[in-house]
């Protein structure tokens, strides 16, 4: 098997996919998170400002989901197919909510009628909240494993089985992480009374986050088999939970000092470290089988051919700097507080 820097192609692609989904979580994290605060903002103008804070950015942020999904399909077609067809209902709900969320952003400010805007506000709030929650639920299901038999055939429940106490817990944690991220982002984008209101909301959000984070971590360490063993095998990776913990602790500190830009960085780092932790725990498995480990989806039995992975790594090497350039340009253009004008939503 060919390698680069001692890493084989499937492992490299695993890192690429991980990077893409981390980018997605961080960027759409503040988009969904901001949306999950929507009904907590009382005035119509505040809600408009909140939507326009993500206005020019959310479409670009969503690209990370599109590229991430493409990268999964491309590099690990078996993982892509098995995950989506086994988790049919949550993913269909997720997709439908994405459509509703986009519609709410596009159509909310198209009319002045109060009932129109209130309806879209509710749709927007619910879709953002549930999207964040469902992402956590799916993550938890992957961590717990699917009922996979020979040839990756899924024989588990099909409608509500994806909701277990653990997955609900991870769902809430994800929501609270996103809400923290979203509130910090909105603080960077707003001023005046809305800003004051958001500082208050962010404090609530952080409390919620710290509690759910602590509960979920404890539960994971206690009940998920093999978590501790994995660290015993490669103790160096014990640095990940330590870093995650430090990043988590740093967020409230920076918020209290009103250093919101720094707080956003550390809140993003929290997500990145937590996802790295998940990636480390699973590697080289992608979806554990609860029936027999030999039926698990791994980066090796799920991967595309060497040739294909090689082509795609080349595409990433060319494309990633371009993408970084576009994003720098975009974020630079829309740096600073929201100012509503005739082009706003």
């Amino acid at each position: 098997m060919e390698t680069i820097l001692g890493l084989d192609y499937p492992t490299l692609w695993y890192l690429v996919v991980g990077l893409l989904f981390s980018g997605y979580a961080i960027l759409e994290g503040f988009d969904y998170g901001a949306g999950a605060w929507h009904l907590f903002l009382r005035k119509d103008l505040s809600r408009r400002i909140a939507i326009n804070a993500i206005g020019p950015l959310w479409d670009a942020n969503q690209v990370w989901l599109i590229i991430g999904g493409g990268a999964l399909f491309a590099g690990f077609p078996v993982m892509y197919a098995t995950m989506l067809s086994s988790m049919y209902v949550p993913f269909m709900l997720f997709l439908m909510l994405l459509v509703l969320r986009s519609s709410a952003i596009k159509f909310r400010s198209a009319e002045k009628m109060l009932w129109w805007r209130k309806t879209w506000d509710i749709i927007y709030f619910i879709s953002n909240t549930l999207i964040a929650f469902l992402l956590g639920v799916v993550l938890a299901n992957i961590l717990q494993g699917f009922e996979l038999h020979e040839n990756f055939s899924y024989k588990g429940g099909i409608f509500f089985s994806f909701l277990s106490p653990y997955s609900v817990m991870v769902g809430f944690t994800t929501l609270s992480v996103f809400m923290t991220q979203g509130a910090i982002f909105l603080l960077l984008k707003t001023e005046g009374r809305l800003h004051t209101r958001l500082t208050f909301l962010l404090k609530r959000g952080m409390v919620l986050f710290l509690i759910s984070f602590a509960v979920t971590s404890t539960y994971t360490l206690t009940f998920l088999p093999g978590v501790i063993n994995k660290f015993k095998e490669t103790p160096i990776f014990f640095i990940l939970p330590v870093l995650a913990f430090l990043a988590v602790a740093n967020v409230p500190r920076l918020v209290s000092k009103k250093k919101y830009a720094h707080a956003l960085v550390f809140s993003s780092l929290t997500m990145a470290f937590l996802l790295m932790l998940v990636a480390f725990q699973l590697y080289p498995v992608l979806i554990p089988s609860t029936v027999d480990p030999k039926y698990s989806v791994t980066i090796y039995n799920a991967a595309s051919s060497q040739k294909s992975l090689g082509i795609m790594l080349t595409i990433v090497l060319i494309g990633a700097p371009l993408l970084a350039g576009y994003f720098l340009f975009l974020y630079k253009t829309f740096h600073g507080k929201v100012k509503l004008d005739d082009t706003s939503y």
Partner: protein
Amino acid sequence: MDVEILARIQFAFTIAFHYIYPPLSIGLGLIMVIMEGLYLKTGKKAYEVLTRFWLKIFAVTFGIGVATGIIMEFEFGTNWAVYSRYVGDIFGSALAAEGLFAFGLESAFLGVLIFGWNRVSPKVHFISTIGVFLGSMFSAVWIVVANSWQQTPAGYHIVGEGFNARAEVTDFWAMVFNPSSVDRIIHVWQGAFLAGAFLVLSVHAYYLLKGRYVEISKKAFKIALGVATIVSFSQLISGHSSADGVAVNQPAKLAAMEGHYQASAPADLYLFGWVNNDTQEVSGVSIPGGLSFLVDQDFEAPITGLNAFPEEDRPGQVNAVFQFYHIMVSIGLFLIALTLYASFLWWKGKLFDKKWLLKIFAFSVLLPQIANQVGWFAAEMGRQPWIVYGHLRTDEGFSQEVSSNQILFSLILFLVVYTILFLLFIYTVNKKIKHGPYDEAKNPNEFLKYV
């Protein structure tokens, strides 16, 4: 109903709905690039007003295109898991390329395009417009490459057997430039240009008929008519080239398009007709040997008919393929005649004299849309029973672990949400059109200093 049929209905519904929007975005993108380019070149306010107006409609169209497109990306996995495992190695690189090269470009510049008027210089804004337009063009490239590979696979080999069989790339460029890619990309692009150009023609014909925004509408109409005339005509060429490819690579599809059954005989070209699959007869008006002539420049040349293929390898819905194909061709020919005549009047300086012509243009917006839809229907139904031509059958490709109840659940959700979305789209666009490019009640000179 069984899982396969439901999965096919859901896919057909979601992709057909999705395909209303991206062609409009591509076509409007081109028109906006021209309008904004003219604004930068001439400095005339009229072109800025036009660009800003069409940008508003573009934004709504693009938004729905993205939202419904994400669903397509994941629907391969949810409903066509076996197929996804089979083609992942091939599709993967095309999809990855699309995401990074096309989609990133498109979406990042979209923000600047829509919200950046007051934040960047006119030149940078123009570059953003071009960026979004090019991004949407590239997007079409990679998607059509992937679909064309399903029609005419190339640059691959099959590895494994039974459940574990899959196609793997052996030659990336042969896969990208498979025999039908280039023709179909051009055909799809041009279909998109027509969709956009005819929307612009339609809206400004409506304004001209109502006597509103007359000056700028004349300008916009001419831009769109120029595009529509050239593209309608060149669409005939790419269409012909595409059909030539089908004759070589997918003879069963070509035979279905013309309802040609005899295994090896000269084939007629129908203007319209009705295919009876049981009696294997077509009733309608035809040019005898016409298809033979188009393919081989010889009215007597034999063309492979449907009977040359075993029953189970023929498209199931011959009449549907025939009808869809003929509707597309008829619309294409009509658009050529319409645009050529209008261009002739333009040359004579009488373009806006005939009210009935403007009325036709006002309604013509639907025609390229219909042609785009039925063209895809013909292409996809003509490929049946294969999901990957010659290798994987559609009835082998769907997700085995998904039940019909699950698909019914999602299908109903799609029907409800998409119906609402479509109504909202029509309502919003209609409102923007009624409202117009600027407020007439105010002094128009404020907006159009050149008047």
